[in-house]
């Protein structure tokens, strides 16, 4: 009985370790009424960012350091995978008053 318990605990831990280390997360950043929500998000290299543009206007998420430049047509969802670590400030090329930040851990 004890052995079974130990085994199942070990198995649960192994699953937990596996999910945290190998499974990339999906981070959702919504653009609503010319605002990125959340304005600052944390992620890891390999994570996917789902950019959900709810506006009737086209936007972009353009990294100031040129790491990414995502075009977001009106009322669309675009996914990108984060490839480089760093703190990246981004903005919309068409409406430079729209600003956001992604903190990407290695």
């Amino acid at each position, binding site marked *: 009985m004890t052995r079974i318990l130990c085994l199942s605990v070990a198995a649960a831990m192994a699953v937990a370790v596996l999910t945290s280390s190998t499974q990339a997360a999906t981070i959702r950043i919504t653009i609503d009424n*010319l605002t990125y929500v959340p304005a600052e998000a944390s992620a890891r290299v390999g994570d996917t960012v789902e950019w959900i543009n709810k506006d*009737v*206007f*086209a936007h972009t998420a353009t990294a100031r350091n040129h790491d990414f430049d995502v075009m977001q047509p009106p009322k669309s969802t675009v996914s990108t995978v984060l490839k480089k670590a760093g703190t990246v400030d981004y903005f919309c090329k068409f409406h*430079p*008053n729209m600003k956001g930040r992604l903190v990407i851990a290695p």
Partner: protein
Amino acid sequence: MISAEPLRQSAIQPFAVNRGLCRANKGYTIMLVRSCLVVAAALLLTTAAFAQGGPKPTDPQIAHIAYTAGVIDINAAKQALQKTKNKEVKDFAEGMVRDHEAVNNQALALVKKLNVTPEDNDTSRALTKQASEKLAELKGLNGAAFDKAYIANEVAYHKTVNNSLQKTLIPSATNSELKSLLETGLKIFEGHQQHAEQVAAALK
């Protein structure tokens, strides 16, 4: 200082009454002429006050001003797309057509939903007149001279429109959906102003 809004209402109603009196009592002609003159003077005063931003514009007038402001910028952008060879200016102008058409489509959907007929007024007429003068002026320019003049006007134009949205149109709007659309418009146009400023800096 007399408030202009009650003045306008009182100016219109006695006018109708006096016309009735004109037909009924010919003996009072002199008095009536005098009162008609007072009415005419009041109407003139009201027009002047409105032009100076005296009385608040009504929702149908605000809708007309906002829509007209959008159409003007679309026309300016279409002229630019015909004339420019500069990629940044072209991208900017395409953005103006896209965004202002999107805002104006929303405005049209809203006035239809609210059953409001946009109402022509002095402000939108003045805007249209200035815009056609600007189009004629820019028509004579080409190349870098055109690009610079177009972008400089875009910076100035968005500043004027944003100022009017902030100080007059948004505070005067009574319908909450119209107010909210104007607020979105302000954010978009502030973005355009910054974008135009960036393009202007790159053209130098």
